[in-house]
């Protein structure tokens, strides 16, 4: 599944980011494999998405979020 499938308040772990579709800036802000990501808030139509990636708070558009693969944390 991808980041775009998260529901508000849910958490996941980033497993892969397709570097050709993702601006480098986003990686530099901490959006890297292995980091946990939480969906803090969504705007209407779930776009953009307000994320908390390992303590970094940022917003991205849904069209970017679909290029970030995640899985749920093993409880």
């Amino acid at each position: 599944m991808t980041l775009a499938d998260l529901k508000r308040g849910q958490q996941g772990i980033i497993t892969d980011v397709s570097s050709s579709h993702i601006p480098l800036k986003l990686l530099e802000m901490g959006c890297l494999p292995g980091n946990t990501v939480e969906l803090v808030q969504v705007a209407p139509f779930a776009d953009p998405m307000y994320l908390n990636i390992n303590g970094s708070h940022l917003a991205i558009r849904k069209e970017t979020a679909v290029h970030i693969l995640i899985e749920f944390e093993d409880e």
Partner: protein
Amino acid sequence: MSKQINVALIGNPNTGKTSVFNALTGLNQKVGNYPGITVDKKQGICKLPRGVKAHIIDLPGTYSLNASSLDENVVIELLLNKNDKDFPDVAVVVTDVENLKRNLLLFTQIKDLEIPTILVINMSDRMAYKGISLDIAHLEEQLKTKIALISTRKNTGISELKELITNYKALSTEPCMNAASIDKDYFTALQKAFPNQLLYKLWLVITQDVNFGKTNRQTIEAVSDFKTKSKADLKRLQQKETIKRYQFINNVLKKGRTIDLASAKDLRIRLDRILTHKVWGYLIFGLILLLIFQAIYDWAQVPMEFIDGAFASLSNWTKNVLPDGAFTDLIAEGVIPGLGGIVIFIPQIAFLFLFIAILEESGYMSRVVFLMDRIMRRFGLSGKSVVPLISGTACAIPAVMATRNIESWKERLITILVTPFTTCSARLPVYLIIIALVIPEGRFLGLSYQALTLMLLYLIGFGAAVGSAYVLSKVLKIKSRSFLVIEMPNYKLPLFKNVAITVIEKTKTFVFEAGKIILAISIVLWFLASYGPGEQFNNAETIVQQANPNLTEEVLNDRVAEHKLEHSYIGIIGKSIEPVIQPLGYDWKIGIGLVTSFAAREVFVGTLATIYSIGSATEIDDEDEAMSTIKNRMAEEVYSDGSKVFTLSSGISLLLFYAFAMQCMSTLAIVKRETNSWKWPIYQLVIMTGIAYFIALTAFQILK
């Protein structure tokens, strides 16, 4: 004079660079531009212990040395160019204790450039609140640097920072991690090809288009025994670099920082639940907008009236004190009203910047971007276009400059092109006088027709901006991937000092930049209206007297003045464009106003004031009386067949013309600078004025 130490403040956005800068320099600073581009360059002087002085630059915020915007490029170009006169003797990297991990990424890159570096960990006042504690000695050892733990809010640690800057020679220049570990083979080959160059510097040159000294990408690619990689490969390596750096930072922080989550509190979550809410969020944003408009158009009136009055009495006073003559006229009727025309906008501009500074400082602006992005994107804009569009209601110049942080070139360009449609404060004087003249009094649902007209004009301006953005997004064939990455910073109480300095600096820039032009125009205008070629102008008195021998002295003076104006240089210009503007319902006097107000819209009212007061020899003492006198004179204006010049139809045509036309030289100049070509401002001028002409023509022909 002893040598100054060059200090560069570098860091991610929102870490407090500007606060540190203000703490070090106070008001001892000036804002300029980097050559060729309009990125603010803030520099100042700081007195250090033992009589040493430091020259400090506040660099634009950047997340890394991989530039993705104009602002960020400035940082790299400075750090890579040893010959730049501002090249730092010491780099001060400012970080926020709450975002240390992300902030350190940039720090490790700068260390790789082997520049002496001090690490400032700012916002130490938040540590207790967030349950953070740091092992400074461990961090200093691992990061091979000296650390200043400071709080610009509580004013702690500043003197320690000054002490560290003074002793910058003692700082280590050793990198804290090994750049070659990103890709051993590649970097070994690179170093072999350029044995005398710094490895990380080479890497930066390869991965981006920056210029520094002799080495640029072409020269690296030209070395035959070294193979460069494809773009995609390079990007993969950059990603690997980022991962490596984070691994290093995580290791350092594991021992160097502990966070006691139990004692951490978070205001953000509670506030964001409301401020970014699907309903409440928009409602609150709407209320804030109302408050801003209220301030700009209501509260600002008080100081504006005061300024207006002050300049009017100054003008009268000058006339009384100085001896009669051309020079006095120039001062009293040209220069002083011209200056007044600039100063009068200070309250509105200052209010606007006050609000914008508070919204930016508090962290709320990012939430606006978040809320508005989706809606704005429908029209080819970005969430980040909202700030320019709001600023545009005061003045398009700062608004165009505020587009710089929009990542996508297409979205940025469209924002720049449509912003001048929003109703700026310079249109207001024009609207007010014409509305008062042609819109009847009376009320509809408790609102006066005049107020409704004004509101409608605002809506038209905003609609034109959004509508043309939509058209442009379909028409412009620019390939530029649109994406949005925006940090959502913590909410903070704005620092009074920061807000005050921003308001003062921005207002100052506006006054001087726009002021120069308006002043020049009003002087030129005065000359053109006071002189003319040939008999008709020079012998006006005799000519009028001969034609009408039986006039009283007062009426005669009026007629003479009018005759003179008609045959002055400006009158000739007005007459010559009359055929073009007649279908819109304007006479040659309005034509003069259109021509002069091409420089800046607010000049229109000033021009009419000049024209009608030159036309009328009657003395005007009181300011209110002066205004109503101009209004009365305008209302009395008739064509030779006796029909009125200012009617409902010609008035509405004029209002619509000003709503759409690109009547502002300063905006064109700033658009040229920001887009780096004359192409866009020329399109803007031709298309906007074309639309204005067409709509004004249609309106007049229908209503007539």
